[in-house]
């Protein structure tokens, strides 16, 4: 199966850092150390010729020829995936390029949401100027600005309705699990899995829904929106899967270099028994699609949306002697069914078209209907 054009969500706050990380080069890159780490620890032993070809000026290209997920981060630009999202100052939304469109994805409680943008919408203009012909970086630059300043965006929602919004930029730290309500049902949205933080935030949010009911009963399904979840800590995703499965249920098998495997099973602990719906799409990647695959294999969740990205491998970050960091693939993840989703993705139980996938007010009723069809 060919990989889709839409690739992971790019956070405005990260754009600059990622751009630097991908093009990092120049003097001082510990190339021999990088070669040694990959030679000894990469999931698949790289060809010596590829390792020899690595050079500081074209490191990003050389690394990706060895491992598409490999990245090099100079010390100053590294941000641990276990830190969670930093506080950001700006419009409180992410940009998602998809096909010819650029979508704005608002964070709950952020400036864009406060201005009235509650669901994703296509970005059309910034301060009256069309974004046509502008690069992603230029668009991000125009949206950025200090707290207290304003920007006017022209948007078109998923149903095609156009409007203009004045957004006052401000400092903001997103919730680890968001709770959005496009209609009668509340939806939990996870965008990344952070070690030790996402699972408790999810549990707190489920409790919050129960304690502030608003007509929602314990038998109502939990709807988890993973459409924009690009991954994160694999074990955090496994811990979340375990919340919905009985003790001892197989979660995944991790395969390392040389065929060494380890099977992970659900530990004893909290069990959430409500029906579960996962909203997935091409932006659902890595740890997020592994979570979806595990719960699908156990028949514990109904998957609604579109086929996921297709990356069932896990990466590790190794700190090098100069403080810089090398990220590379060190494990392949097999689902309980034995399936390995890399390059294939996880298919939904109920497929919807792209217009529906982008519109929660249409997607959620379809998803609720899917539970009753079981």
């Amino acid at each position, binding site marked *: 199966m060919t990989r889709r054009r839409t690739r992971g969500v790019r956070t405005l706050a990260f754009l600059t850092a990622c751009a630097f990380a991908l093009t990092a080069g120049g003097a001082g890159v510990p190339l021999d150390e990088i070669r040694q780490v990959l030679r000894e620890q990469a999931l698949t032993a790289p060809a010596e010729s590829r390792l020899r070809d690595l050079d500081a000026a074209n490191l990003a290209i050389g690394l990706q020829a060895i491992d598409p997920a490999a990245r090099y981060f100079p010390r100053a630009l590294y941000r*641990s995936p276990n830190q969670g999202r930093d506080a950001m100052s700006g419009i409180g939304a992410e940009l998602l390029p998809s096909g010819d469109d650029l979508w704005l994805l608002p964070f709950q409680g952020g400036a864009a949401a406060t201005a009235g943008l509650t669901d994703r919408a296509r970005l059309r203009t910034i301060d009256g100027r069309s974004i046509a012909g502008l690069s992603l970086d230029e668009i991000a630059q125009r949206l950025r600005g200090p707290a207290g300043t304003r920007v006017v965006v022209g948007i078109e929602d998923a149903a095609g309705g156009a409007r203009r919004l004045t957004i006052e930029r401000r400092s903001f730290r997103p919730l680890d699990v968001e709770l959005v309500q496009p209609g009668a049902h509340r939806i939990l949205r996870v965008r990344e899995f952070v070690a030790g933080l996402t699972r408790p935030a999810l549990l707190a949010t489920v409790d919050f829904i129960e304690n502030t009911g608003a007509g929602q009963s314990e038998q109502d399904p939990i709807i988890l929106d993973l459409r924009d979840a690009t991954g994160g800590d694999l074990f955090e995703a496994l811990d979340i899967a375990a919340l919905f499965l009985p003790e001892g249920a197989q979660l995944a098998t991790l395969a390392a270099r040389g065929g060494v495997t380890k099977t992970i099973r659900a530990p004893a602990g909290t069990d959430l028994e409500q029906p579960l719906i996962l909203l997935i799409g091409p932006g659902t990647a890595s740890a997020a699609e592994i979570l979806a695959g595990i719960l699908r294999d156990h028949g514990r969740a109904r998957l609604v949306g579109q086929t996921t990205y297709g990356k069932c491998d896990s990466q590790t970050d190794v700190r090098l002697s100069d403080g810089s960091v090398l990220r590379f693939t060190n494990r392949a993840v097999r689902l309980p069914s034995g399936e390995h989703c890399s390059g294939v993705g996880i298919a939904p139980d109920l497929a919807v078209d792209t217009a529906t996938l982008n519109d929660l007010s249409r997607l959620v009723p379809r998803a609720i209907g899917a539970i009753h069809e079981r």
Partner: protein
Amino acid sequence: MKSPIAWSIVLFALWLSGCASVSTDPREGGLAGGIKGLSTGAYDARIQEREDRLAVLRQVQGELETERADLEYTKAQRKQKVAAERARVRRMNRDIAALNQRVDSLSVSANRNDQRVRTLRTRVPQIQSQSARLQSDLDALEGSGLGDTEADLKRAQLEQQRASLQSEYDLLNQMSLDLAR
């Protein structure tokens, strides 16, 4: 020219029609309405109606006052909860910092290749930075610009995350004590 008597009749008729309003309110009803209101008891009814309306307004004002007091109480409770949570996170931060120092010394005395030492060396700095993040999130919760619902949800998440980190700290701490023996 018409006689003065005819003019007087016309003017008197106009004056009477000005007074003949349907309102029984003496400030509005004119002479005829006022006389009618007083004689039929409609004026008393009007006063009663005003008094009833005033009573309703007073009741609404009382309810608003109670609601305001409830909100103040809720706000004070929220502040109290956040303050208590901040104290718990501060305490946890101190504990984790002490554990981190112990792990540093363990790295010298214990076998560096021991899986437990490696786990401690990896995870303790991580929970230290996550705990510091919780602290800054709690510090920023007041005046964060979040609406009440989001702020309540954020606080609930922070509490659960703190409890989860605390459990992990307890396990790591126990592991470090076992290693030190």
